[in-house]
């Protein structure tokens, strides 16, 4: 069992390669993978694949036994007795590291602490194992490498635990998106997909000690890239994105630039103020993109929207992501397929311009999201082209009624007495 803990970003990624042998007498199709529950609640992502064939195995969250959360891995075939299988479990945790000291000066150095198990998590007897810890740069006390290796250890009992504590320097902003709301609005009329993303961001790094000094900020411009302050953000939008805007609650923010690259459009923007530890900022940006880039018509008579679940932002951890898909008015028989489990899926009605009965709204909620979740998901629905006529018809009827009323009204006599000519 070989494990690598990647601490080079705020989202802690663990990759465990397991060689497992069936010591039972009958073929086995499952494997239990334990995660201590303190970590398990920070678990954002888990995936298991076989090394040899690159096939993904299904994973299911099962019982919590003795402060340990077990995940059940289903192999795609049964393992015969004495047969070995090599597979890799990849996990990602958010909020698994904490800054220490809690407060640093404006240009101070930020150190983080990671606490975990020095041994690989295993529910089975382990013959041999080692743990690697990878850091962003050599910044560990008294060691000059960016990889630390523990082990190898031999013959560990199931559930062996010894505390591993890594205190290391991390000179980057720690960004947590407390809430992200993505609105995807499909319009068959305009052949347009309107995307709007609302961010609520917090800098979760070591807090700013004392107060912000603009003087110091201006005088230390040349070392800004070495501090934990976050000022420049960059998101990649689809290549054909147009009408991009970047705003916050009190209006347009003028510090943004848009640049076209070969297969993406890059939006670079700055918040209104630089973000230091403990500071918050909210904003939203949006853009239009031709519908054909993401929507396909399938032979079965269904439209299929295929679009990434999130648009990652600088390795930030997302505490809560809400994706709202607004389908055109009259869409029916809606189905959502996601490559990973979703916390909540709700269906509703959304009314906007020129709507009569409202559009079909699908809301997907997911907590604890990381970059690995920027995979495509699918929404398929049925839509009758005649529905396209609904809007003009409603508008026409509305105006017709208005004119009719006016006709009736102008032919009526309201005065009390006879008008004297």
């Amino acid at each position, binding site marked *: 069992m070989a494990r690598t803990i990647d601490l080079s970003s705020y989202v802690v990624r663990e990759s465990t390669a397991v060689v497992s042998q069936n010591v039972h007498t009958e073929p086995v199709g499952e494997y239990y993978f334990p995660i201590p529950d303190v970590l398990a609640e920070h678990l954002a992502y888990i995936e298991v694949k076989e090394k040899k064939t690159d096939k993904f195995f299904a994973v299911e969250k099962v019982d919590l036994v003795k402060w340990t959360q077990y995940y059940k891995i289903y192999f795609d075939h049964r393992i015969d007795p004495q047969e070995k299988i090599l597979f890799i479990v990849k996990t990602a945790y958010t909020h698994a590291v904490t800054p220490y000291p809690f407060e640093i000066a404006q240009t101070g150095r930020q150190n983080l602490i990671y606490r975990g198990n020095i041994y690989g998590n295993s529910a089975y007897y382990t013959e041999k194992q080692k743990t690697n810890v990878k850091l962003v740069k050599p910044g560990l006390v008294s060691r000059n490498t960016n990889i630390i290796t523990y082990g190898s250890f031999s013959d560990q009992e199931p559930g062996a635990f010894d505390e591993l504590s890594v205190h290391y320097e991390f000179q980057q902003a720690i960004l947590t998106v407390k809430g992200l709301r993505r609105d995807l609005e499909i319009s068959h009329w305009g052949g347009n997909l309107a995307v709007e993303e609302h961010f609520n961001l917090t800098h979760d790094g070591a807090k700013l000690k004392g107060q912000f000094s603009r003087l110091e900020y201006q005088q230390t411009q040349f070392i800004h890239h070495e501090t934990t302050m976050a000022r420049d953000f960059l998101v990649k939008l689809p290549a054909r994105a147009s009408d991009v805007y970047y705003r916050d609650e009190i209006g347009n923010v003028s510090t943004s630039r848009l640049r076209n690259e070969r297969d993406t459009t890059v939006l670079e923007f700055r918040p209104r103020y630089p973000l230091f530890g403990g500071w918050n900022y909210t904003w939203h940006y949006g853009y239009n993109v031709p519908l054909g880039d993401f929507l396909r018509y399938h032979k079965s008579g269904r439209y299929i929207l295929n679009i990434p679940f999130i648009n990652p932002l600088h390795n930030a951890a997302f505490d809560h992501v809400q994706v709202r898909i607004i389908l055109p008015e009259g869409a029916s028989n809606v189905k959502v397929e996601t490559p990973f489990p979703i916390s909540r899926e709700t269906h509703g009605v959304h009314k*906007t311009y020129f709507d009569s009965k409202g559009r079909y709204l699908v809301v997907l909620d997911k907590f604890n999201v990381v970059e690995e979740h920027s995979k495509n998901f699918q929404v398929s629905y049925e839509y009758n082209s005649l529905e396209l006529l609904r809007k003009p018809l409603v508008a026409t009827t509305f105006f017709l009624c208005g004119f009719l009323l006016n006709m009736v009204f102008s032919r009526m006599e309201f005065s009390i007495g006879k008008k004297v000519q």
Partner: protein
Amino acid sequence: MKVLGLDPQHQASLLKVIILGLIAAVAISSRLFSIIRFESVIHEFDPWFNYRTTRRLVQTNFYEFWNWFDERSWYPLGRVVGGTVYPGLMVTSATIHNILHALNFPVDIRNICVLLAPLFSAFTAIAAYLLTSEMKDSSAGLLAAAFIGVAPGYISRSVAGSYDNEGIAIFLLMFTFYLWIKSLKEGSAFFGGLTALFYFYMVAAWGGYVFIINLIPLHVFALILMGRFSTRLYVAYSSFYVLGTLMSMQIPFVGFQPTRTSEHMAALGIFGLLQIIAFVELVRSHLASNQFQILFKGFIFISFVTMFSALVILTVSGYIAPWTGRFYSLWDTGYAKKYIPIIASVSEHQPTAWPSFFFDLEMLIFLFPAGIYLCFKELRDEHVFVILYGITASYFAGVMVRLMLTLTPIVCVSSAIAISRLLDTYLDINVVDPETSEPTPVVESKPKDKHKKVGDSSRSAATSTKAEKKKKKQFFGIIGNDTRGLILLNFFFFLVIFVWHCTWVTSNAYSSPSIVLASRQADGSQYIIDDFREAYYWLRKNTDDSAKVMSWWDYGYQIAGMADRTTLVDNNTWNNTHIATVGKAMSSSEDVAYEIMRRHDVTHVLIIFGGLLGYSGDDINKFLWMIRIAEGVYPDDVKEGNFFTARGEYRVDDEATPTMRKSIMYKMSYHNYNELFGGQGQDRVRGARLPAEKIKLSTLEEAFTSENWIVRIYKVKDLDNIGRNLEQASAFEAGKKSRRSKKKQ
């Protein structure tokens, strides 16, 4: 002659509708400069409050709004918003918002607020058309509509984003006057009632309603004096006054004022007078003339004595409030400066300078007397109204810059009468050519070039005269074609220049949102200086929700609107003492200020500092007003003289007085500023070099300074842990630090 199967009369009305529609479109679009240049954003100061209350109204309901006690302003006093606000504006936009949302048009309330004033300016143009049509004819009306559509005097208060009471009030003013003229002309109780209804709307929308309730009685009084009493007048005024007064008392902010304050007494008096005259008229029709004479004299005498003594007694006993300070300042321009510095400190309350008349009205100001003269020539009842409106509004506009707004509509109406008269005279082909059986109707040729909104009538005139030229050439002198052509060309030129001037003024002077500043970068691209929003947004996101921000009152509404934090004072300025307290804190030394701030739970202090960028509207320049207002309430603690040098100069450099240097305003403004320059700082607003010594703050610490240093926010320190005063504490800290650093060396 039939065009499009319509007879000339219908053609004319179709054209009128089209022209009016185009004028409305022009009125709206010429107010959109700021949206195109910047963005759809609420401007300046007061609009932020209106916007905030409108949002509140939209989010809750009307009764919540009515009973809203705003504990986040005027801390710790709070403000009863429902009872101290003219709700017309907010209710209007909330109604539009709710109707649109009911029809599934989810327009953001901000956009409605931003575009409300341009929308109502289109209505104003239509109201001006109606009013002027009553005065002269519809062609004068169209001219007036075009004028008011683009006149800078009105645009200054109604550009997109300038979400203020005046935006809708001018429409209401014009429309109320139109309805009044209409009801007077027809003697109709129906129109009188409508007048009252719109008067009520006006009362709900703007404090300037007092102008209506004084001008209409004045008009009635003038008519009576001219011996023009009629039943029409009686019906119109009685129905208007009774209904209007009753309705206006429904607004909590107005309440019983219509019966208890001097501003409204004229209307009541005229109402009484009308009743007496009507009664006298009735009696006269039933009695012989000699009996009547005795009765009349006795009656007049007794009623005059009783009314006057009643007024005096009521005023003395306090039932009728004497005139308020703002009204005194209308009569005596020096009054405010002496007694209420808070009113005088507002730049829009200053007396108007001559050039601003030309700036805001261009050639209309010269045509205005001509129009008044033409009204004198005809002098029907409604012309008396124009004359009275013109005279009173000119006076008020001269007293206060802000009241230029009320003058603009009547100037437009009156000049439209003048120009239309001129065009009538010079375009009347019948005088030239009696044989021409069918004169080319003026209106008909108008639309050919209606894209030239104002110049259209004169341009069409030019074309029609050209056609004439071929026919006849024997007329010379004043009615000769060449003279006509010259005059018309001349006026066409004036009108074009007028439109050009108006557009220029609008785009350059009145379209800046003032919360966003624009400048050019070296490469010519636009650079937006967004310091205000940067700092407000920082406050909004990074301070505790219960933070109390002390700033000068100018920024109160903006802080409440954009930063969503509690403020001590704001632009409502209802409590002079509270403002003076803030002024005192700003102008006194740290320990005095600290005590005041602690007592008011202040956590943050926000100041505006323009020294780095050369932004002249900053707090050091406003500082004298703070001192003056503070001195008015605390004459023992704050003395204006202490801030001036021995030679009577207001200095911030080496010669600044000790009191000045000790004041926290000075300290906060220039804290860390010298260090930015690595020596002595240069203040670019006042062109001064700062004293070299370092500014030490012990009770406040810098919390945030915006990119260009325009907004500086300071945090008020907590009390020291071991009970020292903060000055000692920070001196101790500094001592420790320096000792420590010495040790290192």
